């Protein structure tokens, strides 16, 4: 049991976490920039997006993407083993990260953008070369924290993970426990999560105290 828990379950959990984190970052950055825009036509869709996805239970979003869309449209996702799960988690993570990224950008003194603009830098250049690198430093602790949450939330994909070789840790452990009437797989699954989350949680605490010290 243990080898497959690692080679299938843990591997898939990491794959889901990795792609959803990247997807969440991309969506979060886009939505954050839209929310900071001067144009209302960009601000309000971004606000609706974040409110909606933070207001809905993540599990419902996952079920909606994984089952609702294919049922309603008859359309099948490409890469069905990973894509629907990654998409759903990216959207949820993106909504939370958008707020983190926005707070990071707003944490950079206004004078930085003004100095860059006064030198003739266009807004996107000033954002990318001056503001975002500084905002990113402020964002590292909360983003690491969101990585931990996302890592754990991949377990919600247990409702989807029915394809061969596509089970993440929770689904794998649950099926194993069901099949053998033996709950030790669940304990092993729990340990697999903790091996990753506990060091990350310590890291976040350290990062947070360091950012505080730097102020």
């Amino acid at each position, binding site marked *: 049991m243990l080898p497959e828990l690692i080679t299938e379950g843990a591997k898939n959990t990491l794959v889901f976490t990795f792609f959803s984190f990247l997807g969440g970052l991309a969506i979060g950055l886009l939505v954050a920039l839209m929310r900071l825009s001067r144009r209302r036509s960009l601000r309000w869709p971004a606000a609706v997006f974040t409110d909606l996805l933070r207001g809905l239970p993540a599990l419902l979003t996952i079920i909606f993407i994984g089952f609702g869309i294919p049922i309603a449209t008859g359309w099948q996702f490409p890469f069905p083993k990973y894509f629907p799960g990654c998409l759903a988690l990216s959207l949820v993570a993106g909504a939370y990260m958008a707020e983190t990224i926005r707070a990071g950008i707003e944490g950079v003194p206004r004078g930085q953008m003004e100095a860059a603009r*006064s*030198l*003739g*830098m266009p807004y996107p250049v000033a954002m990318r*070369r001056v503001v975002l690198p500084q905002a990113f430093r402020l964002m590292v602790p909360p983003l690491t924290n969101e990585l931990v949450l996302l890592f754990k939330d991949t377990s919600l994909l247990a409702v989807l993970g029915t394809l061969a070789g596509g089970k993440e840790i929770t689904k794998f452990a649950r099926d194993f426990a069901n099949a053998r009437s033996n709950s030790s797989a669940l304990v092993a699954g729990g340990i697999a999560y903790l091996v990753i989350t506990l060091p990350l949680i310590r890291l976040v605490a350290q990062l947070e105290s360091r950012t505080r010290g730097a102020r």
Partner: protein
Amino acid sequence: MISITGLRKSFGDHEVLRGIDLEVAAREVVCVIGPSGSGKSTLLRCINRLEEPTAGRVVVDGVEVTGPGVDLDKVRTSMGMVFQQFNLFPHKTALGNVTLALRTVLGMDSGAADARGRQMLEVVGMAGKADAYPARLSGGQQQRVAIARALAMEPKVMLFDEATSALDPELVGEVLGVMRKLAEQGMTMVVVTHEMGFAREVADRVVFMDDGLVVEQGPPAALLGSPREARTRSFLAKVL
């Protein structure tokens, strides 16, 4: 070089600039003085449109800054601005601060940008600190790097907004020294300042602002020595 007519600026229903007319000739140094809150910063920030004027015209070097369809990024390269809080980029070295816009705005390659950057740091006496990050520099050194950063774009006009107000008294001199040198080299400058000594010695003209209006202007000796307006007299009595 700079021509401002009928400039107004409101924040909400608070009118901060109430119709400013001001001409600055090429190579002229104009010092703007006045009580805090009188609109001096807002005036400077309207010149390069960091603030959007509510009404009026600003023309710099023949380009109507307030005109429709103006390429703001382009006209801003012709105006350098120096801020009270320096606003150096903390994640860049002194040299990196100076070269960032050379590379991203003027499209210089890094060799050419570094060469001009070092030359500009030399001008402000900061060549020895090219590789230092702002956090390792004193306020006076930071402000001199900020001046070099603005000068590197070869602006036609320099705008100084209380460039020495955030400095410890012993560091004011080095920054004023750089500004004086610039003035002597013929740079067109608009200098918002509380340094009356600098205004008296370096300015070609002093402008006194109060409550969003230019109350009085003239040569430094006349304006600072024998002001006509009561408001100017009472302000000077407080600061001199």
